[in-house]
């Protein structure tokens, strides 16, 4: 685990380099974001025995039965190979997806008409109203479960210390903002569901 932790830190430096504008791996922002999220996900999975328990050791060997992509390949590019990858890598992917989307785990919104269409998943707050519904959704999305939050805060604090030590102030400011958003007050409640 400690060894994994060290690997994680080296990856982090690449993410930092990207944040500084050094092109480690040119590509869309989404890709860079996934990379950053992947790094956090690996570290988080070590601290909290969740759906990704054991993932750092075994997940890399996972492969999608449909397209053949391995989890290790996904980790290196941040790109999945086919729709089937979402099922094949469901375990290790879940915390990454949740983290990339502010704690959300379930889709809310449009659905193909052949599956019943948008009517079944309309947002409770609706487009026209600005009410408490939105705040609850946002808070829940931000804070997630207590364990997840604690693990995330620990990772963020470590990253912040590293960024400050490396004088990467822009990244440090981003991490500080993230930490603020992950703050403890009003954080009860689970993740968002459809």
């Amino acid at each position, binding site marked *: 685990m400690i060894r994994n932790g060290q690997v994680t830190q080296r990856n982090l430096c690449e993410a930092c380099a990207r944040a500084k504008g050094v092109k480690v791996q040119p590509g869309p922002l989404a890709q860079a974001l996934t990379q950053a999220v992947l790094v956090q996900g690996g570290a988080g999975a070590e601290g909290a025995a969740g759906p990704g328990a054991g993932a750092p050791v075994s997940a890399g060997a996972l492969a999608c039965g449909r397209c053949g992509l391995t989890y290790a390949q996904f980790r290196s590019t941040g790109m999945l190979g086919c729709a089937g990858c979402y099922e094949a890598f469901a375990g290790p992917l879940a915390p990454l997806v949740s983290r990339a*989307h502010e704690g*959300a785990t*379930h*889709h809310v*919104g*449009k659905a193909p008409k052949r599956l019943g269409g948008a009517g079944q998943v309309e947002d409770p707050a609706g487009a026209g109203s600005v009410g408490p519904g*939105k705040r609850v959704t946002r808070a829940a999305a931000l804070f997630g479960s207590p364990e997840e939050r604690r693990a995330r805060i620990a990772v963020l604090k470590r990253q912040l210390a590293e960024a400050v030590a490396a004088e990467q102030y822009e990244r440090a400011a981003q991490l500080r903002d993230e930490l603020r958003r992950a703050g403890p007050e009003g954080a009860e409640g689970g993740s968002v569901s*459809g």
Partner: protein
Amino acid sequence: MNEPFAMSVVPNEAIRRGAPWLSGAGAAAEVVISSRVRLARNLAGAPFPGRCNAEQRLAVLGACRKEIVSAGLAASGARLTWADVHGLPTLERQVLLERHLISKEHAGLKQADGSAAAGAGASGAQQVKPPGVGPARGVAFTLPDESISIMVNEEDHLRLQVLRPGLALTEAWKQADAADDALEATLGYAYSPRLGYLTACPTNVGCAVRMSVMLHLPALRLTGDVEKVRRATRDMALAVRGFYGENSEAAGDLFQISNQTTLGKSEAVLLRDLEREILPEVIAYELTSRKLLLEKRRRFVDDQVCRALGLLRSARLLTPEEALSQLSLVRLGVLTGLIGGVEEQAVTQLFLLTQPAHLQRAIGRELNQQGRREARADLCRAALAGAAPTGG
């Protein structure tokens, strides 16, 4: 006429006119240049483009093309144009990129401003790269409105975007939603009830929608407050980018603000967050800053915009960055009444018309960097010939 010009998919008339999304129409157009909604969709039966072999890519391209061209997506009076992007010359791919009809990745160009590709086109030595560049991919877009464009085999099988002038996210979403419905009727999308639309990158999963606006914030830049907007939007999990997307600096004081997350919020909520909560504040902030600048620092602003006009009316060589930054100030001058004799929209269109590929298409031949700088300066002098300070 040489080949890069013979194979153009964007008509000459459109090149001369500029882009519809820069027309200055629409709500809050003083600040909001354009609104864009982009959906990512994948076919259920095929690997994502990055994982497709050449044969699978062609099959996806063919299937999508067939449905796209027969889906009746063009509004009345408009028509749908299809192009195999891999078969287009560098210059034409760059034209499509500059008009925001395709992404930088889809264009297959090294830099967003196309400088590497344009340089290659001019140097001769590197020009051996034939049409037929990169993997099979395509784009469909409507003319003359250019409101819809659909990239096939980008990061996802389909990237459907609607681009409109001014603040028009709701209208853009409605149009994208309807086009999506029309395609979905025949193309089976990869979709999971729990995760929504499945995308190659998990950061796009869910609604798989990116709603963005391009804002012109010259006053906030002059007052130094633009960083506050950056910080505030970042705190709200919004992405802030430049004129040409990620990694591009905010040249010309143009900033794109878009939603960052796509899972756990409906399209309606994303729309409301942006259009009703965030954007009105940013727009008001910029307009208030313009007003305050005029009231309290009028001579300073007048000096800034008139210097910019003087430079553009006198320069014999202009880089793209210099042109954009000076045009931004001239636009501010026109909108605040400090500069007269030129229409605001003529200035705004110059943001696009001074781009490298547009300059070359307008002139009708390939230009090296020096040639482009000359052409850019000539164009600005001609376009701003009637413009003059109003006297503060």
